[in-house]
């Protein structure tokens, strides 16, 4: 009987430990997916490459302002593609607000499409987006090759695409700026390109479209 009790206790401990191990392994896989390669905004774009001139498209903002997406006039421009019914987009709005305050040289333009004007208006009011220019345009999204939301395109002060990609988190958004500073198209390219020398780190993607040997 003593032996049996002891055996049951040992088995319990083993089962719990195995449960922990299995969970930890599954978690590890998740962490690997997340950390190993695509740590930054994912770039899938057939239309635009880093270093391309940003297409200039005139749009009208919600408050009736006529502005041009891609026309930077000496400042950088971040085109942030979003939709009122996209939860991840909403969770990034506070980050965008902070960003706009922090990066004075960057003009943030929100671009959305579909839906009714009222929906967009309500979205801007609910989320207090009055500080941003908010344009509704399908053409801008199509010209910039935007497939999935939320999507960010950073245009440098010379009107060239500095970095672009799907933006799912604060880190992804920051990675767009990081990629611009480092002169690589996307964090994946940086990671995929093997070791990067100091020169490469500082070369300018805008002058030399990033086409690294894969």
């Amino acid at each position, binding site marked *: 009987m003593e032996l049996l009790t002891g055996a049951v206790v040992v088995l*319990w401990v083993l*089962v*719990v430990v195995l*449960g*922990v191990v*299995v*969970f930890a392994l*599954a*978690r590890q*896989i*998740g962490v690997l*997916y*997340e950390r190993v*390669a*695509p740590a930054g905004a*994912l770039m*899938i774009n057939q239309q635009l490459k880093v270093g391309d001139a940003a297409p200039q498209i005139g749009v009208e903002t919600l408050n009736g302002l006529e502005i041009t997406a891609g026309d930077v006039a000496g400042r950088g421009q971040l085109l942030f593609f979003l939709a009122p*019914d*996209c*939860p*991840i987009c*909403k*969770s990034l709005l506070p980050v965008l607000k902070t960003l706009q305050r922090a990066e004075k040289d960057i003009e943030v333009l929100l671009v959305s499409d579909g839906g009714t004007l009222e929906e967009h208006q*309500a979205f801007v009011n609910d989320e207090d987006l009055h500080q941003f220019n908010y344009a509704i345009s399908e053409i801008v999204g199509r010209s910039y090759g935007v*497939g*999935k939301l939320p999507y960010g395109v950073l245009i440098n002060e010379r009107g060239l695409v500095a970095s672009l990609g*799907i933006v*799912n988190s604060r880190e992804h958004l920051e990675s767009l700026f990081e990629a611009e500073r480092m002169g690589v198209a996307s964090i994946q390219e940086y990671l995929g390109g093997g070791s990067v020398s100091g020169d490469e780190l500082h070369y300018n993607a805008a002058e030399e479209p990033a086409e690294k040997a894969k």
Partner: protein
Amino acid sequence: MNEAVYITSSWLLAVVFALAVRHKVTQFIRFKATLQAYELLPQSLVAPAAGALAGLELVTIVLLVALQGAGIVLAVALLALYAMAMLINMARGRSEIDCGCGDEPTELSGWLLLRNVSLIVIGIGAWMLGFAEITFAGLVVGLGCTVVAALLYMTFEQILANRSLHTRLWLGEA
């Protein structure tokens, strides 16, 4: 014997809701947006409904930990409600929306329905079984089973999240 089953079921459901409510409270903005994306409620009702659901889940957890039958009833009702909401959106062909499970956005799938249905079966089973009295041995076995069941549940959730994570980050299709 019965009490061990009852304790395991109740506490497992409590763990499930505790994992779920954490995101609802810490990322309330996102939870509201998720609820809105389900397109089942008019805009004006989304915020109050989100608050009510989070509050209801907290009450459910307390009742479940205290082994109250009402906790199981509430838990089953909430799980059925969520399963219905997912089913309606899958039928509408909108399975790409975030399920609202927290952390990694996970798209709606049969797996999530299976998860909810399994939990509902566990809840109803325990409720029908009931128990006579809580014994010390029952408590110990119940606690052990809860730990293992909770770990298995977390593993299941993790694997589902991994699937979405892989699709979104590596294939870019989410």
